[in-house]
C-alpha cells in the first residue's frame, strides 16, 4: 500500500492512543466521580473510535490491493465495534452518573445541586409514590419552572 495511506493510518492510531492517555490521566487526577466520568468517557470513546477507524481504513485498503476477503470482514467488524462503543459508552455513562447521584456522592466543591432540588420539589408536590425504578416522572416538573424554585431557595 502506498506511503501516504500508511501515514494516514499511523496518524489515526496516534490520535487514538493520545486521547486514551489523556482520558486515563483524567481518570487518575480528577477529584470526584462526575468529573472523572466527564474526562474518561468522552476521551476514551473518541480515542477508541479513532483506532477502529484506523484499522478499518488499513483493512479496506489492503483488501483492495490484495483482493483478500478476510480483510474486508475484519474492516466491517471493526466498524461494528465502533458503533457498539459509540452507543454503549454514552448510555452506560449516563446510567452511572445517575446511580452515583442516587448513592449520595456529592460533586467535590459543588455549590448548587439542581437535580436534588428538582427531585425534592417533585417530592413536595405529592409525587412520592414513584420509586427508584422510574426516574422520568420525577424530572418532568422541572422543565417548566426552570429558574423559579432555584431562585427562591437561594434567596431564603
Amino acid at each position, binding site marked *: 500500500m502506498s506511503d501516504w495511506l500508511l501515514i494516514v493510518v499511523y496518524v489515526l492510531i496516534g490520535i487514538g492512543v493520545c486521547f486514551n492517555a489523556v482520558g486515563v490521566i483524567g481518570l487518575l487526577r480528577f477529584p470526584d466521580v462526575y468529573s472523572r466520568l466527564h474526562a474518561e468517557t468522552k476521551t476514551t470513546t473518541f480515542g477508541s473510535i479513532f483506532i477502529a477507524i484506523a484499522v478499518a481504513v488499513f483493512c479496506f485498503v489492503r483488501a483492495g490491493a490484495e483482493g483478500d476477503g478476510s480483510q474486508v470482514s475484519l474492516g466491517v467488524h471493526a466498524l461494528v465495534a465502533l458503533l457498539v462503543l459509540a452507543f454503549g459508552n454514552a448510555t452506560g455513562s449516563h446510567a452511572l452518573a445517575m*446511580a452515583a447521584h442516587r448513592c449520595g456522592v456529592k460533586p467535590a466543591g459543588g455549590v448548587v445541586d439542581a437535580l436534588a432540588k428538582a427531585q425534592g420539589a417533585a417530592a413536595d408536590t405529592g409525587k412520592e409514590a414513584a420509586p427508584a425504578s422510574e426516574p422520568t416522572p420525577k424530572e418532568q416538573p422541572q422543565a417548566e419552572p426552570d429558574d423559579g424554585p432555584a431562585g427562591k431557595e437561594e434567596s431564603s
Partner: protein
Amino acid sequence: MITACLTAAAILAALILLASVRLMLGPTAPDRAVALDSINTLLVATMILLSVGFDQPVFVDVAVVYALLSFVGTLFIAKYLNRKAS
C-alpha cells in the same frame, strides 16, 4: 504497520494498568464502576489493534461481543447501585 499496531497495543495495555490503579484506590463504588468502564473500552481498542497485529480476524468478533457484554454489565452495576441507594 504490524509493529505500529503492537506498539500501540502495548501502550494501551500500560494505560489499562494505570486505570486499574483507580479501580483499586477509588474511594466510592461509583468510582470503581467508572474505572471498570474505562478499562473495558481500552480493552476493546486493544483487541482491535491486536487482531491486525497478529492477523487474526476472529479477535475483532471477540471485541464486539466484549463491548456489548461490558455495556450490559455497566447498566447492571448502575441498576445495583440505584437499588442499594433507595
